[in-house]
C-alpha cells in the first residue's frame, strides 16, 4: 500500500464552520491511512479574492507567478497526488476565494502547457490521481441538479481535463445543510473520514 501526498484546500470564512470540521475529519481519515496531508485554509491566509492585474499581464509570460504564496501553493500542487476541495456551494459554484485560488495557482506551466506552435492547451496535472470534493449545499438535491452543480462541474470536469482521464473523482455532498439535525451532520463527518481513509 503506497502513501499519497494530499493537498486539502479549504474555503470558508468561519473557523467554527461545518466546512472546517469536514476538513479536519478529512485530514484524520487521510492520516490514518498513512497519507501525507497539507492543508491550505484560504480565509485563514487572508488569500486574495481575485487574480491581480499584474498577474493577468504576466499570465502568458515566462514567469507568470509573482506572489511567493502562489509559488508555494504551486509546489504543493506539483507534489500532490490527491487534491481535496472543501467549501460551501454558493450560487451553485465555488466561493470567490476558491475560484481565485484556481485562477492564480493553475497558471500555464502548472495545470496545462500552451503549445506555442498550435496555441492548443495540453494537460499538465497528470500526477494528480484523485480529485475529491467535499461540499455543503443550502438547497435540496433536486434543486442543485436543476440549476446544475457548477462547482462540481468546475472540479470534476473543468479541472479534470488538466489532470487527465486516469484521475478518479470522489464527491461527498451534503444537501439541504440547514435541514439536518446534529446526528445527520455527525454521520456525514464520519462518512468523510472513512471515505478518505480508503483513498488509495
Amino acid at each position, binding site marked *: 500500500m503506497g502513501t499519497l501526498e494530499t493537498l486539502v484546500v479549504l474555503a*470558508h*470564512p*468561519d473557523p467554527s*464552520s461545518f466546512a472546517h470540521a469536514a476538513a479536519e475529519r478529512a485530514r484524520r481519515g487521510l492520516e490514518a491511512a498513512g497519507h501525507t496531508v497539507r492543508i491550505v485554509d484560504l*480565509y485563514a491566509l487572508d488569500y486574495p*479574492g*481575485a*487574480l*491581480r*492585474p499584474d498577474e*493577468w*499581464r504576466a499570465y502568458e509570460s515566462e514567469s507568470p507567478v509573482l506572489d511567493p504564496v502562489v509559488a508555494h501553493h504551486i509546489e504543493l500542487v506539483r507534489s500532490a497526488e490527491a487534491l481535496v476541495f472543501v467549501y460551501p456551494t*454558493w*450560487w*451553485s*459554484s*465555488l*466561493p*470567490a*476565494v476558491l*475560484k*481565485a485560488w*484556481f*485562477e492564480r495557482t*493553475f497558471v500555464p506551466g502548472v495545470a496545462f502547457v*500552451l503549445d506555442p506552435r*498550435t*496555441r*492548443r*492547451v495540453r494537460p499538465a496535472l497528470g500526477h494528480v490521481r484523485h480529485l475529491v470534493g467535499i461540499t455543503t449545499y*443550502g*438547497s*435540496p438535491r433536486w*434543486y442543485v441538479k*436543476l*440549476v*446544475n452543480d*457548477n*462547482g462540481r*462541474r*468546475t472540479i470534476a*470536469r*473543468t*479541472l479534470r*481535463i488538466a489532470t487527465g482521464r486516469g484521475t478518479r473523482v470522489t464527491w461527498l455532498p451534503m444537501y*439541504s445543510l440547514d*435541514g439536518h439535525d446534529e446526528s445527520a451532520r455527525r454521520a456525514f463527518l464520519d462518512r468523510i473520514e472513512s471515505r478518505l481513509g480508503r483513498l488509495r
Partner: protein
Amino acid sequence: MSRVLVLFAHPDRGSFGGAVLERVSAGLQRAGHEVRLRDLYGESFESRLSIDEKRDHLSAPDTKPQLARDFDDLRWAEILVFVHPTWWGAQPAILKGWIDRTWARGVAWELPDGAKRLKPILSNVRRVVTFTTHGSPWRVNALQGVPGRRIANRSLRVICHPLCRTRWVAFYGMDSADDDRRRRFLRRVERVASRL
C-alpha cells in the same frame, strides 16, 4: 428604454475584454438605455464574503452598510449585463464574489419561516445577458460542462422575474483567433447590445 446594470470584470480596460465593454456601452447608448457601469477591478471590489456577512447572512440588508451601493444597483436594474473573460469555465472570482456578497437576503431572496429553500424576490430583473470570451474552443468548454453559462442562466436566473430571459454571447477560441474574427465578434456585441 430600460435600466441596465453592467458588471465588468476584466483587469485591463485596454484589452480585448475592454473593447467588448466599449461596444456593449455603445450599443446600450444607441438603444437609449439608462446605464450604470460597475468596473469591479477598477474599483478594487472586495470579492470575499466576510465572516460577519456569513454569520449574518439572514440579516436584513440595512444591517450591511458596506454593501448598500451594491444592493441599490441590483434592486434598480431591469437588465443585468455581465462582461467578462471566462476563466476555468466560469466567471472571474471578482465577479463571483460580487454575486456571493450582493445576492443577499432581502435583496435577491427571502427565506420564509419553515421554508426549505430560497424564495426569489429579484423580480425587477427581466433579462440576464452575458458577453464573454473563451481562450479555448467551444468543444473544450462543452467538455468542461459550461459552468459559467449555467451559473448565470440558471442559478441566477431563477431568482429573477419569472419571465426573465437570458442571453449568452460568447467568443470561443480567442487564443487562436485572428483580427478578422475579433472584429466580427465586436460588431456582433454592439448589435446585440443595441437590440436589448
